[in-house]
């Protein structure tokens, strides 16, 4: 495909020279900007404490202490906090789908009275960033109206507000709208009720969009810091991110760095494995939404 520069220009000697020098400069710049910090982290986690405190710093550890990672895992009790993170994110993701899929299906295919009003009211919440509503949502979670329960220090304090995601419902509804009604009519004639229709017809056809919504939800939950910081004051309940911030000033630097690296590995690994799908889903979700 033709872009800014004419392909013919790239074939001239001067064009080729400019192209290759720009490419090399860009490769170097990207590597310095994005690989060096990660290299510095992983090797920093393998240095001894005195070596870490040295100025100027060493580029390659003089003595390798890969054992720091095992020490960090044990001494910082990372397994517990990884477990908390998985419970928080996994629960919020599943609950979110369980709430949003039927809602989008109802708004798209069952079309009840006032359905459009409800959708409009949901979309209005997109104008109000959740962070700004920190205080009233916090007070609501600490004393849920009607139910009268206090969810502070409960995983539900993270799960429930995350389920109220208008963007996901909107994206899912738009996708369901494109599924032809003939398919649903055929299912109804075969005796399928609304739930069976959703479960057997809509959901299998919607795997790609469910994947997109899942990626967006999980990465948003993974990145969120302020909300778990506020609703999970009990150290035993905190996800790994809140926990690392809390212990940052009282832990020896090499163990902390090893902890930071370990905390980063799961999502980076998932990204590197599924990068094609994730990057495609990301741009599809953002340009359509």
């Amino acid at each position, binding site marked *: *495909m033709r*872009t*800014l*520069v*004419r392909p013919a220009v790239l074939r001239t000697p001067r064009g080729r020279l400019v192209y290759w020098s720009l*490419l090399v400069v*860009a490769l170097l710049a*990207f590597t310095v*900007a*994005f690989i*060096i910090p990660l290299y510095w982290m992983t090797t920093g986690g393998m240095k001894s404490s005195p070596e870490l405190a040295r100025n100027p*710093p060493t580029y390659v550890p003089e003595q390798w202490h890969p054992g720091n990672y095992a020490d960090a895992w044990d001494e910082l009790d990372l397994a517990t906090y990884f477990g908390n993170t998985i419970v928080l994110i996994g629960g919020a993701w599943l609950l979110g789908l369980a709430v949003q899929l*039927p*809602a989008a*299906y*109802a708004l798209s295919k*069952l*079309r*009840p*009275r006032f359905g459009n009003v*409800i959708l409009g009211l*949901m*979309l209005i*919440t997109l*104008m*109000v*960033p959740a*962070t700004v509503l920190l*205080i*009233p*949502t916090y*007070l*609501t*979670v600490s004393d849920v*109206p009607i139910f009268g329960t206090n969810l502070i220090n409960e995983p539900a304090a993270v799960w*429930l*507000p995350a*389920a*109220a995601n*208008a963007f996901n419902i909107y994206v899912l509804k738009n996708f369901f709208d494109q599924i032809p009604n003939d398919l649903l009519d055929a299912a109804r004639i075969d005796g399928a009720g*609304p739930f069976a229709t*959703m479960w057997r017809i809509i959901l299998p056809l919607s795997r790609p969009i469910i994947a997109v919504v899942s990626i967006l939800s999980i*990465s948003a939950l993974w990145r969120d*810091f*302020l909300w778990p910081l*506020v609703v999970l004051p009990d150290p035993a309940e905190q996800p790994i991110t809140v926990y*690392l*911030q809390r212990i940052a000033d009282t832990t020896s*630097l090499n163990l902390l760095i090893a902890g*930071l690296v370990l*905390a*980063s590995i799961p999502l*980076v690994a998932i990204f590197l494995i599924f*990068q094609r799908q994730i*990057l495609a889903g*990301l*741009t599809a979700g*953002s*340009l359509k*939404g």
Partner: protein
Amino acid sequence: MTAPATVTKGHGREASRRRGPERRRRLTENVTAYGFLCAALVVFALFAWYPVVRNVILSFQEVNFVRGSSWVGLENFAHVLDDPLFGTAWRNSALFTLYALVLGFAVPFLTAVLINEFRHARAYFRILVYLPVMLPPVVVALMWRWFYLPEGGLINEVLGSVNLPTSQWLNSADTSLISLVIVSTWANMGTATLIHLAALQTIPGDLYEAAELDGASIWRRVWHVTIPQTRFVILMLLLLQIVATMQVFTEPFVMTGGGPQDSTVTVMLLIYRYAFVYNNFGAASAMSLLLLAVLAVFSAAYLRVTRGRQS
């Protein structure tokens, strides 16, 4: 004569007989649909709609968990406005947003334009630029706090090794805010870059062809073809970024705690302090309401842009 009459009559009777079941059928349909919707309605009511209303109410109340809350009129707003940090926090958030526009907005766009010209290593560029988005912001903030150390930190070491001037970074009130913007740009530019890249690939090649035939230089082609052709995505990302950066919290909270000399106290950090340090939920709500009003302008503009595009 009689036959059509009976037909009409029979038809009418049948219709009236059918209207009952018809209405009942529609009722069951509505009940079923609301059954599918009810979970969403409950979570939205409790955690999305009610908090908006409650935020307004709270900002006019003194919140007391023991004695119950009481109305205090505009006292919370007066308290917030009297705080010497009020102006500081707004100025810092606005400056953060401004710097982030200069840096965090221009860099992803230019990066995307550049990558789009390359015929090699495109996957490498895309993966690298998106990698930091996968790191939790807390990890990014803690690791950069260490990189920024003036003595023995990575950044000064790299700058010093190529004879560039070093800096105090987070330790000086003059550079602390821009240091946070650099971190936030590094961590978040992947998303914007990839969205720009996707938009660039939708530009028809003949537009560049035509511009070139008219004698347009490469810069004029960027200005007159690339930017107008992707203006929707540019505007969308611009508004999204303003809304996101005006709420910045994690970087100042983790990296500087608002210092040195309050140079990185942002609006969200102040809201957090009111509520969870000073236990003044009324003042925190008043401040939130002000932030909400400012952000609503940009959010409304964003919705207008995206909806205008769809119709």
